[in-house]
């Protein structure tokens, strides 16, 4: 990294999460210093790791897996050998039983019982034969793919816990938007050029069975980045809350930062913001036009709290995390941090579980006292049959507002209005999950920040294309080529054309061979070729026979060609059918993991 500040650039970065810190880190590589403003007392944003009595826990799970080379390189540069390669296991916990997803026949049969399994299969077949014509709601979208029964057991409760609204009110379009990347083409591609356990460059992100993970959780990564950034001359202000964003014309002129109750005004030439768009727009001074403000207020977020419980048990279940589909409890997901990394607990005789509750800031759950939440967590673990509440020794609650940007029916239009307005402000760039109101994972958030840093240095990237137009990444451009190849390889062969072509060439071959021998002459003309007459009645090695041979040969060639093309298409159709089934199964997995 270059050490001196290269220019008259004054870079202000709002947010000390993965996006903000990545931007600061990348700028330093070109000698450009910056100031990062983080409103909390710790860096990492949603990717932070909390240390409670030497038990480490995350807010959600953060697997380190990416297809973006630059992000992978940064992880390695910063943490080097501190990464552990971990096996992934996550299952659905329902009715006191664990279920793999996509469902495995024996596991489902034993877990759900014979009668329930029959009903599931029947409802699945019904959905395949008579799907709902409209897919307006999420309920219809899922039921069309997996059947009503499976929807009720494995999708409804959990989805409603995560988003806090009935599935009948969530638009199907939302699911279609979120559950992408598992098309038939992708499944075929995986079948042909990669496999689930193989090279990770070749597989869809969520299919991996292993992932990298820092010894002490993702917070280790961001703490380290913050240390490097500070050492290299940039500043990271903790407990620094943005109170105002002063703008004029097409520029942001300064930020009003509240630190320890004191408001400081910090001027800058460039601003990178990862703070939630809604909040950012509300901080503009002077106020933004009314329609922009209304659009910002229309953006919604889902919030999240973790109740970490320390349990006097060395082993509870082998999963990294489990999804709780029982409707009788409020907990949505349970992380077992020890299974992410053994270093996350100080004592191997204890386990630390993170009970994750999805809520809205200010609702009943959010407003409960910490001790009440810990009691709720204990009761629910007991009710689920996972832990005897007497074994719970201690607990800690962490609330994380605005964890998930909500993609409801109006967010797209609102975001468009905001983007149009912010697009006019030349020295402001939005990055990260909340900064762009986009459900980015850590790697995409980092990548937007890297591109933002490059833009400051003179590049001209469109950050909104990251994670939308996949071709943006070079390696994914290769995948587009693979898709083109697949389309060609899986196209149907035209049976009639192929049959006619093969028939014609076969007929010509016999015709020419016969004529050649006739012209060549001899005592006995073509005695061996004449043996064809045993099959081709009426064929002789004569000019007339050449035409008869042509006709016979054309006929058989035509039959052979037609059958060849038919069988070729049939085998490809079977392959497509298998891939389609697999894609459906993977959609199940993707839905549970990402929706």
């Amino acid at each position: 990294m270059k050490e001196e500040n290269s220019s008259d650039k004054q870079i202000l970065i709002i947010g000390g999460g993965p996006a903000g810190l990545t931007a600061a880190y990348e700028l330093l590589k070109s000698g450009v210093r910056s100031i990062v403003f983080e409103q909390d007392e710790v860096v990492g944003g949603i990717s932070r790791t909390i240390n409670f009595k030497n038990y480490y826990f995350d807010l959600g799970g953060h697997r380190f897996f990416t297809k973006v080379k630059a992000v992978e390189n940064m992880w390695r540069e910063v943490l080097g050998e501190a990464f552990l390669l971990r096996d992934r296991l996550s299952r659905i916990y329902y009715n006191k039983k664990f279920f793999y997803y996509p469902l495995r026949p024996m596991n489902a049969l034993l877990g759900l019982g014979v009668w329930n399994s029959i009903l599931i299969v029947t409802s699945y077949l019904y959905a395949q034969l008579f799907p709902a014509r409209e897919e307006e709601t999420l309920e219809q979208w899922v039921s069309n793919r997996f059947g009503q029964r499976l929807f009720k057991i494995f999708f409804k409760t959990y989805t409603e816990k995560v988003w806090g609204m009935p599935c009948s009110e969530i638009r199907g379009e939302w699911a279609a938007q979120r559950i992408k990347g598992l098309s038939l083409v992708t499944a075929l591609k995986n079948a042909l050029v990669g496999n689930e356990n193989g090279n990770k460059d070749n597989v869809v992100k969520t299919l991996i069975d292993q992932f990298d993970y820092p010894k002490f959780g993702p917070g280790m990564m961001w703490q380290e980045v913050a240390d490097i950034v500070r050492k290299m001359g940039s500043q990271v202000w903790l407990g620094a809350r943005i109170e105002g964003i002063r703008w004029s014309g097409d520029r942001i002129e300064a930020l009003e930062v509240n630190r320890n109750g004191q408001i400081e005004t910090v001027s800058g030439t460039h601003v990178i913001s990862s703070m939630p768009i809604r909040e950012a727009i509300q901080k503009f001074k002077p106020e933004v036009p009314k329609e922009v403000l209304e659009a910002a207020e229309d953006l919604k977020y889902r919030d999240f709290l973790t109740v970490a419980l320390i349990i006097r048990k060395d082993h509870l279940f082998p999963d990294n995390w489990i999804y709780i589909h029982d409707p009788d409890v409020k907990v949505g997901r349970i992380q077992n941090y020890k299974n992410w990394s053994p270093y996350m607990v100080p004592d191997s005789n204890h386990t630390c579980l993170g009970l994750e509750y999805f809520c809205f800031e200010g609702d009943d759950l959010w407003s409960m006292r910490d001790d009440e939440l810990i009691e709720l967590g204990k009761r629910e673990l007991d009710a689920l049959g996972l832990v005897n509440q007497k074994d719970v020794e201690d607990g800690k609650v962490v609330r994380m507002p605005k964890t998930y940007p909500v993609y409801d029916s109006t967010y797209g239009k609102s975001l468009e209005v905001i983007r149009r307005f912010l697009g006019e402000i030349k020295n402001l760039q939005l990055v990260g999950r909340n900064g762009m109101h986009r459900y980015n994972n850590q790697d995409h958030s980092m990548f937007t920040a890297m591109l933002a840093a490059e833009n400051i240095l003179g590049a001209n990237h469109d950050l909104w294309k990251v994670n939308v137009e996949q071709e943006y990444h070079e390696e994914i451009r290769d995948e587009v080529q693979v898709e083109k190849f697949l389309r060609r390889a899986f196209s149907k062969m035209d049976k009639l054309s192929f049959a006619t072509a093969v028939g014609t060439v076969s007929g010509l071959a016999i015709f020419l061979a016969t004529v050649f021998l006739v012209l060549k002459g001899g005592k006995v003309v073509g005695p061996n070729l004449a043996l064809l007459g045993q099959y081709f009645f009426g064929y002789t090695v004569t000019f007339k026979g050449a035409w008869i041979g042509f006709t016979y040969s054309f006929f058989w060639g035509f039959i052979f060609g037609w059958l060849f093309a038919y069988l070729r298409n049939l085998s490809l159709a079977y392959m497509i059918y298998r891939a389609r089934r697999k894609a459906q199964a993977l959609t199940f997995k993707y839905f549970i993991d990402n929706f």
Partner: protein
Amino acid sequence: MAQEILTEEEKLLFQGTLWLNPRMIGLSVGLIMGGAVFVATNFLLIKGGYISASGEYVVGPHLLLLSQFLIGYKVSFFGSIIGFFYGFAIGTLSGATVGWLYNKILELRKRRL
């Protein structure tokens, strides 16, 4: 059936028609045919022949019939190389013709549709 689940991308996959590359098909068929003559000839050479009633050592009398069309071909190692070239030439011509004809017929059919 569950038609509604198909994405645009998947529809393209199902609706596409295969166009052949005559050069590649010609080359492939040519190599297969040339290789077949070469291997068949050498297989007979290694297997060995027999002494006929007239005291002549005979190897592969039936394969030798190819020489009626492939002038210069013999069941010998040198003959197998000549046979390879003949096989390659005929195979290439046949394969390329099949590919070319297939594309032409398909083009005509598509134009009519």
